[in-house]
């Protein structure tokens, strides 16, 4: 069974001209690390939050979001609570915003299992100590307050908290963006270890293409509430098939690239007040034709590469000579 299985998922909000998510298909298998890449407003965070049933007020949904086979969108509150405390857990960007500064780390870690799983205090504490060790801290941290820990250590605590309920799936929303680069490496190394040790699936939401390439098995690139492209990380970055992916790669300042001007993408993503006819990227796309402005491309398999799918009328022309230029 697929750990996370999102099919034809649409999400609409009041006062917008188009759905915020317009038919998202995404899967995460057991032990699989999947990166969901996109810029602000692409819908990547809404997608990951939907997996825990965290929907904005007034949201209307279609399609299915299944965790371990159960559809989150139709769950009763009691089921949702069980989902959030045991099957799926989320790690947010800013650990300091997600933890009560006035309570000790030990209280924070054990609260959920004591309340929801009915664990005895001693057993809960033993589990918390074990999880702290799994993330490279010691049981001494149980007695400490969040203010006494650095950002990197606190993010480890958040990962330990996510592991407390032994989840099948971890959703990590920009978990390293607020951290220094060397600390980021430590947290990523840790997440990699945990997958081997606990067999969890990981959905890693990030804006950082380099990071996505470095850590994931598969990547989904989102644009304006749709999946633009998906495939194995290496193949996708080696030869992007969607012009948006190619443009994003080219506009990233890289160490290997020569100094000087970047190939910036002109314009900006469509606002939620614009109705979309055709491909959402067409107004900014160098390959766009009349067809692109009239008909939205479906997410279709790439010829010769069955693991890859791309939503572009001109995917056969993408990347010819322009990537690594």
């Amino acid at each position: 069974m697929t750990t996370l299985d999102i099919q034809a998922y649409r999400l609409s909000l009041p006062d917008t001209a188009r759905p915020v998510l317009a038919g998202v298909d995404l899967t995460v298998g057991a032990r699989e690390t999947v990166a969901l890449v996109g810029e602000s407003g692409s819908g990547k965070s809404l997608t990951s939050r939907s997996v825990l049933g965290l929907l904005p007020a007034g949201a209307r949904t279609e399609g299915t979001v299944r965790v371990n086979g159960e559809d989150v969108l139709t769950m009763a509150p009691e089921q949702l609570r069980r989902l959030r405390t045991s099957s799926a857990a989320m790690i947010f960007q800013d650990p300091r915003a997600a933890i009560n500064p006035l309570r000790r780390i030990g209280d924070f870690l054990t609260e959920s299992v004591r309340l929801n799983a009915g664990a005895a205090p001693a057993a809960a504490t033993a589990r918390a100590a074990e999880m702290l060790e799994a993330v490279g801290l010691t049981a001494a941290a149980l007695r400490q307050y969040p203010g006494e820990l650095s950002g990197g250590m606190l993010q480890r605590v958040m990962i330990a908290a996510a592991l407390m309920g032994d989840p099948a799936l971890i959703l990590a929303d920009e978990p390293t963006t607020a951290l220094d680069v060397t600390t980021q490496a430590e947290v990523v190394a840790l997440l990699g270890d945990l997958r081997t040790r606990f067999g969890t699936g990981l959905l890693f939401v990030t804006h950082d293409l380099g990071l996505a390439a470095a850590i994931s098995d598969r990547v989904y690139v989102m644009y304006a509430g749709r999946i633009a492209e998906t495939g194995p990380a290496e193949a996708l970055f080696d030869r992007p098939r969607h012009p948006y992916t190619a443009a994003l790669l080219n506009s990233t300042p890289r160490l290997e690239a020569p100094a000087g001007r970047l190939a910036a993408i002109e314009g900006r993503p469509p606002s939620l007040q614009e109705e979309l006819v055709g491909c959402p990227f067409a107004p900014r796309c160098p390959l766009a034709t009349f067809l692109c402005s009239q008909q939205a491309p479906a997410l279709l398999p790439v010829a010769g590469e069955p693991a890859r799918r791309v939503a572009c009328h001109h995917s056969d022309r993408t990347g010819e000579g322009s990537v690594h230029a």
Partner: protein
Amino acid sequence: MREAPMEAGPGPGTGTVTSPKGEPSMRKTVLEVLGLHRAYGSVQAVDDVSFTLAEGGSLGIVGESGSGKTTTARIVVGLESADSGRVLVHRRDRTEHRRGRAHRLARAREVQMVFQDPYLSLDPRTPVGAVLRETLRLHFPDGDHDRRIAELLEQVGLGTREAAALPRQLSGGQRQRVAIARALAVQPAVLVLDEAVAALDVSVQAQILNLLADIRDETGIGYLFITHDLGVVRCVTDEVIVMRRGKIVESGRTAEVLARPRHPYTRLLLDSVPRPGWDPRGIAEARRAL
């Protein structure tokens, strides 16, 4: 791990960080920072930092949180004072605090700053055109402000429609353009950019980095670029200093430092940049060893 850092922070008073191979820079120096120290309690936030910036040059300061890069920048701008050391712009000492409105304004015209968060650095109630007009009135009471506002907006790629807009009606990238226009309004000799593109999306970040490169070509303004992002440093700076725990551990031509880092900390920073084939476990070990 034993080799000495190349061009490790020059001793106080030497002030020549420019050319690693000893070739003297042909350009005049616009900014000179000499032996800066700043302590907060027992923490030495800035510890004997010296560097120079050539006219029209671009110098990057990289480091992680707590390295002292932001404190250094704030001392250069005058938002923070140093315990000792000097900051000279065109050989005039900025750290010598002379009182009075005229001196204060003159200091502001030497160095301007663009901050990380364009949402926090603009007054939410003031339209963009009025933001620029306010700055121009303060510094050049007799100028032709309408013409200059149009010129500044044009320079940062904004139109008259944006001039009438309030900050909240603009995107993050547009707001950062406004912040840059406001800084340029006084025609400063040096622009300090503190993580000025860090909060922007990749595609917008590229637009702003290109804009900054164009402005430097056109005006000959000098940049002091504070960032944690080595890709950005590669893209927009000629020279770079690497700071760690308040000290400069390495400095030199950007291309040289990034291609052949001499200090183990610089190497660690470079290895930490995620890319395919990246080895986070190795980095974590190297970090602990350092």
